[in-house]
């Protein structure tokens, strides 16, 4: 997966939109090699000096594409992701927020039998300080180094990264896996990447209440991760959501509290904190 994030030729789907064009500029400024973009019906236009095509196929006629970053609005995002899958883009990073769950279920089925890897949706993307910026993580708050961050929440990812940078702790990877119910790669794939990359010397895992992803991540850490892991689960003081029906309790929402996840991560060997400030302090002290 290492090679995937460091892929060279990047395209932007939905490059002519407000977010697409604004973020293309920021990605170019961070040094990302964006070779083209797509918006159906807008072939021939340029955004920040980058040529716009109708389809990915049209770009592939003359260029190899390694990575696509998607900013296409939610109603059309399913089509955009499927286009990237069917044109065999190795890494697809989907920033779009608010894609219907049923669209993601359909995409997930096709993704399983494809050669593509999906990060997101509703993800801030990946930042490799000094390397690729694939998405919207603000590069000017980062510092090149050896820590690796994986998080489910966008803005909390930035907060953690900025906290490390302020204390002079640089990052090799900053990855937001996205907060949607159905998503592409998760904690496990990122933890594996961090474990395998000799440049990474410590791992920060940021989670949230709800779901069981962090519990599965804890199992993975216990079995496969030898590097130091620092973890913070947001929502220690979150009020209980208004529960509808019994399904939530049956699915084990009591296991999904911040306190319980923190306990499980600590038992798996992670150093845990109750706030971001405490987490950064822990990382600096160790």
């Amino acid at each position, binding site marked *: 997966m290492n090679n995937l994030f460091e892929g060279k030729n990047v395209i932007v789907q939905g490059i002519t939109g407000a977010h697409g064009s604004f973020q293309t500029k920021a990605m170019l400024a961070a040094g990302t090699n964006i070779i083209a973009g797509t918006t159906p019906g807008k072939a021939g236009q340029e955004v920040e000096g980058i040529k716009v095509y109708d389809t990915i196929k049209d770009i592939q006629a003359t260029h190899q594409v390694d990575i696509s970053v998607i900013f296409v609005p939610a109603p059309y995002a399913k089509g955009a992701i499927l286009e990237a899958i069917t044109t065999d883009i190795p890494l697809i990073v989907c920033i779009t927020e608010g894609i219907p769950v049923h669209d993601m279920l359909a995409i997930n089925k096709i993704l399983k039998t494809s050669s593509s890897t999906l990060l997101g949706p509703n993800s801030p993307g990946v930042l490799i300080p000094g390397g690729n910026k694939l998405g919207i993580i603000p590069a000017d708050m980062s510092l090149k180094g050896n820590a690796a961050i994986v998080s489910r*929440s966008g*803005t909390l990812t930035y907060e953690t990264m900025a906290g490390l940078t302020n204390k002079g702790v640089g990052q090799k990877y900053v990855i937001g896996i996205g907060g949607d119910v159905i998503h592409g790669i998760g904690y496990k794939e990122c933890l594996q990447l961090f474990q395998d990359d000799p440049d990474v010397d410590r791992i920060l895992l940021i989670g949230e209440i709800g779901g069981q992803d962090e519990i599965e991540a804890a199992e993975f850490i216990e079995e496969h991760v030898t590097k130091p892991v620092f973890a913070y689960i947001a929502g220690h003081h*979150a009020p209980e959501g208004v*529960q509808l*029906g*019994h399904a939530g309790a049956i699915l084990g929402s009591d296991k999904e509290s911040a306190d319980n996840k923190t306990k499980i991560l600590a038992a798996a060997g992670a150093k845990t904190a109750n706030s971001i*400030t405490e987490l950064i302090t822990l990382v600096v002290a160790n």
Partner: protein
Amino acid sequence: MKLLEYEAKNILAKYGIPIPTSLLVKKGDILPAPLVLKSQVPTGGRGKAGGIILVQKDEELKPAIDKLLNLEIKGFIPSTLLAEEKLSIKKEFYLSLLVDRQLASIKLVAHINGGIEVEDNHDFKSWPIEDKSQLETTGQELADYYQLPDQTFALQDLLENLYECFIKNDATLIEINPLILTEENTLVSGDCKMTLDDAAAFRHEWSFEEQPAEANFVTIDPNGNTATIANGAGLAMATVDAAFEAGLKPANFLDIGGGANEETLLKAFERIVEYKNLQVIIINIFAGITRSDEVARAIVAAKQKITNLPPLFIRLAGTNYEAAEKILTENNIAILPDLESALKAAKEVIHE
């Protein structure tokens, strides 16, 4: 979007799923007993809270309607009541279809003993549903599990209709509990909870009773001294956690999301100033897709309109920070470099 029981049942009926004969009632309506009167509130635990009344005699109806219309259940007062025929119950089962995060798939969940105590059970039976073609086999297995061999066809039909209903309506949860087997040996949906995916609203023409929005704004402690505003649910939770750790008493959780405009902030401030012990407001915005200059402009505008605001402790970072700093500085509003210093500064002005 969480639907009320009667809304959910109307949808079930459209897909051929049996529901009891029913009618919406309001104050003063006259109906013949016996019937079951049910408060329409968007929450579970209604039965235990007294929100369902069996009306045995005609003259019991009026007091029952009056009682339920005034009965608050987990903070909700019903605007509507549902009257249903009294069913003759032989047995109650549990059945739901939902999107399972861990499986990344639709899942059918069942239990042979349904009803209000269902969550005390731990031995639920479940089937991942990857495709419609599985439903015939699953229906057979469900009939075996429920020990209702003579209902096999009915359950297969029910599953096919339920699945179609789930897909066509962009549902994320349909829970039928109890699924009632009547003395006449028919299966009827006794109660139904349904959640539809708000993200899919663009392709439907939904018109349901408006329920309180999903928890973007939640009061944690109405007597708290600190209001919090952040963007992104994770950062909003982390801001509350950090405020607690710093010794403040957060009154609320608020995620203003990506759309931190003047209107959103104004609404937030209007709710926040209601807290009677409020002494400080923490604003923690880390802009990625949000642009912090827009947030800064919104803060300036909102602050001019609401004059009784307690001191603001603002932390802004990320996209377009320089422009934001300029706007706030020109308006004599301080920005703090990180959340830690914002909390520390806030703590200093708090008096018990």
